[in-house]
């Protein structure tokens, strides 16, 4: 009995350590892969797959500048927020903190990452950063409208606020993406996924040709490495949430990884061929098509539940 509890506790503790590290490895692999795929689409050879790892190590060894306490803390808060979200998202059978709050906590913890970056960048007093943050917050408001509708449709359909319960339901009854009322929200999620990941055509926040990398402008050395890590974890969260909610999660981490890979490759293809939108165009698009699809999906779910 006691040993059983101990084993249970140990495995929980192990999962808490393993899942963020796994997320980091997958994310960094995706980043390297995306550069490789992009290069091939552009008819280049491209950097080695491990280039992001090399970059991070190099950046840690370089000297950076700091603009003050909040500048340092904000980026840490941002990564910590991402990691905690990862602890809440089931990864195959691994889900260390799922019993502590469910989807609403995920939704709110996802807010710490942009908030931390915004606070950190705000103290740097660089107007390029301020413009970037302003764009980032507008873009999040824009994609949050369809995203909230999508998540509400899913939560209402399964009548739970816990992601862990949604995954086994799909393994019994088939993927939500192919179930009738949730089909439209699923499509809407795919449409807004590039905006969540900050990829083209929604690469408005960084826009290196316009506002010299926006929120990243003042980061150098270790800070830039941390910002890259934050980006990597964010990549993982956006895709993992989709896989869990619409593609039936994964019975084990490996199938989960394969599903994530498939979704990611699609976003890379979109990223490779589309030009960057202006922020008004992005908001207009996100508030029109994905929102409409998600809204119709939510209404269908409501009708079905009645």
């Amino acid at each position, binding site marked *: 009995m006691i040993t059983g509890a101990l084993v249970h506790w140990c495995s929980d503790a192990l999962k*808490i350590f393993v899942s*963020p590290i796994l997320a980091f490895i997958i994310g960094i692999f995706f980043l390297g892969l995306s550069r490789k795929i992009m290069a091939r689409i552009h008819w280049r050879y491209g950097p080695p797959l491990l280039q992001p790892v090399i970059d991070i190590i190099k*950046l840690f*060894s370089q*000297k*950076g*500048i*700091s*603009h003050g306490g*909040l500048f340092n803390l904000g980026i*840490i808060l941002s*990564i*910590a*927020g991402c*990691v*905690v979200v990862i*602890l809440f998202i089931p990864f195959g059978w691994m889900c260390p*903190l799922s*019993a*502590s*709050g469910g989807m*609403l*906590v995920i939704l*709110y*913890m996802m807010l*710490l990452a942009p*908030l931390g970056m*915004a606070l950190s960048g*705000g*103290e740097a*007093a*660089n*107007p*390029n950063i*301020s413009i970037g943050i*302003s764009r980032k*917050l*507008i873009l*999040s*408001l824009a994609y949050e*409208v369809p995203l*909230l509708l999508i998540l*509400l*449709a899913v939560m*209402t359909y399964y*009548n739970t*606020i*816990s992601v862990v319960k949604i995954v086994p339901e799909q393994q019994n009854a088939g993927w939500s993406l192919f179930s009738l009322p949730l089909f439209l929200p699923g499509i809407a999620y795919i449409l807004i996924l590039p905006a969540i990941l900050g990829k083209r055509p929604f690469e408005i926040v960084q826009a290196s040709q316009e506002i*010299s990398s926006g929120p990243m*402008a*003042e980061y150098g*050395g*270790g*800070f830039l490495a*941390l910002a890259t890590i934050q980006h990597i974890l964010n990549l993982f969260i956006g895709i993992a949430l989709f896989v869990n909610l619409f593609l039936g999660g994964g019975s084990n981490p490996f199938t989960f990884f394969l599903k994530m890979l498939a979704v990611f490759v699609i976003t890379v293809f979109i990223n490779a061929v589309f030009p960057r939108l*202006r922020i*008004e165009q992005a*908001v207009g698009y996100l508030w029109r098509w994905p929102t409409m699809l998600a809204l119709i999906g*939510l209404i269908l779910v*409501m009708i079905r539940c009645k």
Partner: protein
Amino acid sequence: MSSLGLLLIIAFSGAFITYFLGKISLKSRDFFAVFISSVCVAIIARLHNSYQKIVYFNFFDLPLTLRLDTLSWFFAIAIATVGALSIIFSLSYIKGRERTSFYYLMMLLTNAAMLGIVLSGDLVSFYVFWEIMSWSAFLLISYNRGPALAAGMKYIIMSVIGSCAMLIAVLSLYAAYGTLTICELVPFAASASSGYILFLLILFFIAFGIKNAVWPFHSWLPPAHSEAPSPFSAVLSGILVRMGMYGFLLVFFTIVGLKVFVGLGKTNFHYVLAWIGAINIVIPTFIAMLQNDSKRLLAWHGVGQGGYMILGVALGSSLGVAGGTFHIINHTSYIALLFLVVGAVEYRTNGIRDLNSLGGLIKKMPVTFIGALVGACGLIGVPLTNGFVSKWLIYKTLILDKHPFLAFAALLGTWGTILSLYKFLHNIFLGQLPEKYKDIKEAPFSMKFPIIIFSGIIILFGILPGIPLRVINAIGTSFGLKSLNVTIWGIASETGTLNTINIFTSLLAVGIIIWLISRFGRKTAAVNQDDNYAAGAYVPKDKYYYTVDFYNPLYRMITPYLRDFADEFYMRLARWGRSLCGKLRRIYTGDIGNYVMYIVLFLALLIAFKLWGRI
């Protein structure tokens, strides 16, 4: 003499003694004001769980009573705490201005009147204290003169309309049942016809809705909050406005009763109320984003957050009422904190509230900034602040009760809040520090103290929400709701648990690990704010901002849709009334001949009337 009566006597007499002490010595007056308000906190804290009811006066055949139960204790402690802290904040804020003794008198009187409202056990005392509160608030709102006079006038006109509605409701209750004691009214609700109950609910909704700034009765609030002295704005937005919520809880759940309220026949009153709450969240929150005056921005959020409370309470489920009630006290703590922060900035920058002309104050006022950050996080509802827990409860009940559209409105409001609150933080504290504020100092201790206490409350209730939730659960069970499974770290249930301690520990641990990792890298060099990367562009000093029109592309898209129709309607009504009166005034020409003609005409009219009457 019971302790309830003693409390009110101390509160009211303390206010007047403070005023007269001000004629003798300013120092002793300040000390006495702080002393009196702290004594009130201490007495109420001691009254916890010693619930009682006393008759203090017989007004003709109406016994006037005082009563203390869980609900009134909960509000009383919030009133007393906010009152005491804002008095402490006032010490330096109001120093050196004119009519300071009057200011303290009115502050203490407002507090005493609010205590009177929550402690009164019958509707006559309730009404009397309500009026004392309304009028002393009016005097404080217009304390600064100038535009404050117009703001105060707008407030008092709407407030009087609300009081009239309440008076009609109270009189009709008396005419129908012959008693106004709250506990004696309770049994009547079950037998009353649903039409009469609806009539009462609508009248009380107007009365309390105006005070609570519910859309479409909100339009007095933004000017009143922004023009009042900042410590009073904290009281006003924090708790005085929420007296309307107390009224709602009292009428909906104590007098009318849960079953009648939720099951009110075909009218679906509570469902309409929930939708009003949802509108109340979305529109004001987005209007707040457009504001350039820091206090006006917060004031609009005061309206917006009221929507969450109404939404929670209107659903009438255990989780919803708990969330709505919890949100009241959370709102009190963070909005009061934010108004005090603005007050501190105003104090140091000689009254600058314009968000476009501040910036970079984090380096000069770090404690104030931390207060602003914690308050903003609470208002947004970032996990580990109290605002998160109450919103979590409201969302959860909305989703599980199958109201996804209401939940959507509530969640969307949160994102609007993030945008406007980040603008608030960025434009005051982050970004470039203008040259003229180079020598600014941190706020004095009497301002830092309330800021620190409020920040502490926000974080404490965010990490250990069980402390207030136990009291709130007791309130819920006293309304006849099912008891919640409250633990120290949140709520346990089968449909989704909240465990704030797990979130806190994991966030803290991860933060420390990342901090350690970041220490592996090479040491960073600290640079000042002018040392910026601008992609090769020349950086002119003091002209290098991005604050004005912070969300410009978004503003252009949403501004056409964000008109305050209610306010436009009232203003048109007011203009119309004024022009009508102006026309009426023209009959007073000052010419005796004209007046004689009026008299003759009037007599002729009378005679004609008399003749026709005969026929």
